[in-house]
């Protein structure tokens, strides 16, 4: 089973997780820029974070043969902090980088006027830089938040086929399916979505435009739940090809629209430095 995790926050995970993910079949992933738990107070600290998403994390992932890409944005929660607003001025530089395959995570947290403004500005950046957009839906007031999200996406003029709306559930799935956007589901140990509920949604709505991620981060989460979902699909009678479509070909197709997804030579992507193992990494 080859797995592409289209949304996982590896910054918050250990190197052991990379090792376990590689053993479970994860060969590529996308790490969206997000809220780190601790509020940030200046744009400089975002620059360091973005640098890490394009430097250190791809290096860590590469040690286990995993291809790492990123999405870059000012996240919805910190869009409300005026001290972080100048991050918008940093974005054009980062949105030109090789490893950046979308603008994200953008969208709503508390649905404030500040979030409206920053969301719309970043959808415009996605259009200007010819990138897809990864859109987070709020944890609170999710159904109305999703409706409002889709209205802003429609108003921005971006092609809905270049937008993934994430963290969906049974209540929000149809809204997004009808919009033409891609549908993201974050499989969590006990909150957003579980493997069995996901299988039920796939049975009901099919595999087209469906993206399954672990969204593993600093909270209680599990980077192997993509694999668990693939296994639950097989148990429920889906074919290996169905699993490959959901866990590999769909995310490749979605992020491939950036023109920057680099999956070349993945089969022989051993972590070597000019032929020498780098797995020791300074121990």
């Amino acid at each position, binding site marked *: 089973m080859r797995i592409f995790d289209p949304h996982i926050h590896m910054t918050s995970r250990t190197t052991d997780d990379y090792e376990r993910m590689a053993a479970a079949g994860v060969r590529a992933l996308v790490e969206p820029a997000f809220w780190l738990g601790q509020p940030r107070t200046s744009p400089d600290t975002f*620059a360091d974070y973005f*640098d890490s998403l*394009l*430097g*250190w994390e*791809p*290096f860590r992932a590469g040690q286990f043969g995993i291809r790492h890409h990123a999405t870059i944005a000012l996240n919805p929660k910190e869009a409300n902090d005026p001290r972080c607003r100048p991050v918008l001025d940093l974005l054009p*530089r*980062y949105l*030109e*980088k*090789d*490893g950046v395959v979308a603008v994200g995570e953008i969208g709503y947290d508390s649905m404030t006027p500040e979030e409206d403004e920053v969301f719309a500005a970043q959808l415009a950046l996605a259009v200007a830089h010819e990138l897809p957009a990864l859109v987070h839906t709020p944890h609170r007031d999710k159904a109305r938040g999703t409706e409002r999200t889709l209205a802003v996406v429609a108003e921005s003029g971006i092609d809905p086929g270049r937008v993934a709306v994430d963290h969906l559930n049974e209540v929000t799935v149809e809204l997004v399916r009808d919009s033409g956007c891609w549908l993201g589901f974050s499989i969590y140990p006990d909150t957003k979505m579980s493997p069995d509920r996901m299988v039920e949604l796939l049975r009901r709505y099919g595999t087209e435009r469906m993206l399954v991620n672990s969204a593993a981060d600093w909270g209680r989460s599990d980077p192997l739940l993509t694999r668990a979902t693939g296994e639950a699909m097989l148990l429920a009678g889906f074919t290996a090809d169905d699993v490959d479509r959901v866990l590999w070909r769909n995310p490749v197709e979605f992020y491939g629209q950036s*023109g*920057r997804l680099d999956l070349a030579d993945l089969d022989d992507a051993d972590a070597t*430095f*000019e032929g*020498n*193992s*780098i797995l*020791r*990494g*300074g*121990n």
Partner: protein
Amino acid sequence: MAPENRTTETTRTAEVDRLRAALHGVPDPQWLADALHRVAAEPATVPRCFAAAGRRCGRDPLPDAPGWTADEAARALLLAALPADHAGHTDTLYRYGDAAEKRAVLRALPLLDVGPAGVPLLHDAIRTNDTRLVAAALGPYARRYLDQPAWRQGVLKCVFMGVPLYVVDGLDDRADAELATMLAGLAAERTAAGRAMPDDATELLSRLSATQEG
């Protein structure tokens, strides 16, 4: 201009010409030619084409310039094309660069007329734990300008990280008794732990010990 500086400039020009020739067969040579013109005329446009160089020129090794990949060589040419009074862009491109861009800046330093101004970038790269950056920081520019304590730490860090010592330019010219002492200390720790030293480090230590005894 002093004769020595003239020689250095001639060497830099020859190296730039060599990379330019080696890039002849890239997928989109016209893009590179246009970008080099644009950067020379409007230096403020360099961040965008610097970021795009890998996508436009590819990332494969260049057969006619051993040790260089197409993206690194293209980025080095872009830096060399900047007007002399715009060297500050080099710092900014490193500061906001992804790992491949940072590596290209480090590789390009010997081709640029910046004197020792690039040394802080070497310090930054050697502090990282990214083998690609540490290796790129120990080339000909480090050989000429990096202070001896930082250079020794860089070499020792290569041994720690499993980076082959052939990446260190002028290794035997700059290796000294203090580096030998540091390597011997590491070898003792490794022996005590039942772990091996990389062969190239053991060989360097033997050469240094032989020199000191001789």
